[in-house]
């Protein structure tokens, strides 16, 4: 079955870890994950400046690994992201910022991508704040 996920919680939260476990379980059971949409505090997953401490799970890297191995789209809500300082080069230029931090494998895009997932995937699961 083709499943999409929406994640509203920041990396290291229990909900974020639950979403990673869910995605791995789904893929192990032969399902596909079409897209992960990071929304609200969830956009903090998209910063490559996150560094998990020893013994913690590096959520940003975990998702990127799944993106590379299974071609999952990792979409970061652009409106939520720019407010929280998660930007790519283009947005850095647009807003006159001296640097950018969007991690490899992640894309900034609009809420339409969440709606599109809800329509095109067979299931959508929301991992709340």
């Amino acid at each position, binding site marked *: 079955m083709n499943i999409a996920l929406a994640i509203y919680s920041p990396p290291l939260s229990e909900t974020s870890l*639950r979403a990673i476990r*869910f995605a791995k379980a789904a893929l192990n*059971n032969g399902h596909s994950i079409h897209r992960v949409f990071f929304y609200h505090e969830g956009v903090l997953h998209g910063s490559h400046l996150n560094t998990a401490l020893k013994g913690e799970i590096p959520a940003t890297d975990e998702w990127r690994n799944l993106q590379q191995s299974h071609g999952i789209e990792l979409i970061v809500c652009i409106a939520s992201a720019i407010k929280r300082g998660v930007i790519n080069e283009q947005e850095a230029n647009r807003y006159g910022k001296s640097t950018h931090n969007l991690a490899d494998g992640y894309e900034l895009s609009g809420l339409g991508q969440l709606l599109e997932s809800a329509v095109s995937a067979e*299931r959508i699961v*929301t991992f709340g704040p």
Partner: protein
Amino acid sequence: MNEPKKEKQTLHIVSRSPYQYRDIEQCLDRACDNDAILLTGDAVFALLPTSTIYHHLKNTSIFMCALEPEVAARGLLEQNVPESTINLISDDDFVQLVCEYSRSFTWF
């Protein structure tokens, strides 16, 4: 003639503590008989027999389940909650429930 099997409709996912929010109560009020409710995160504190919501869970006909790793993380496996009240499920079971029910709905 056999009655057609009822379609499994909505999987409700709850994650906030019943000591802070009324999510589980409101969810129970709105869920249909062929829905399921999954307790995750602090919502699993509803399994404490002293919680205000526990007797509602015991008496509902709705399929109730809780994510076992998150129940274990809170030291609640020792509560010996009767299997008739709650089904403890794995992450694989969570995926299976999402597929079996027509849709999922997360309360927050």
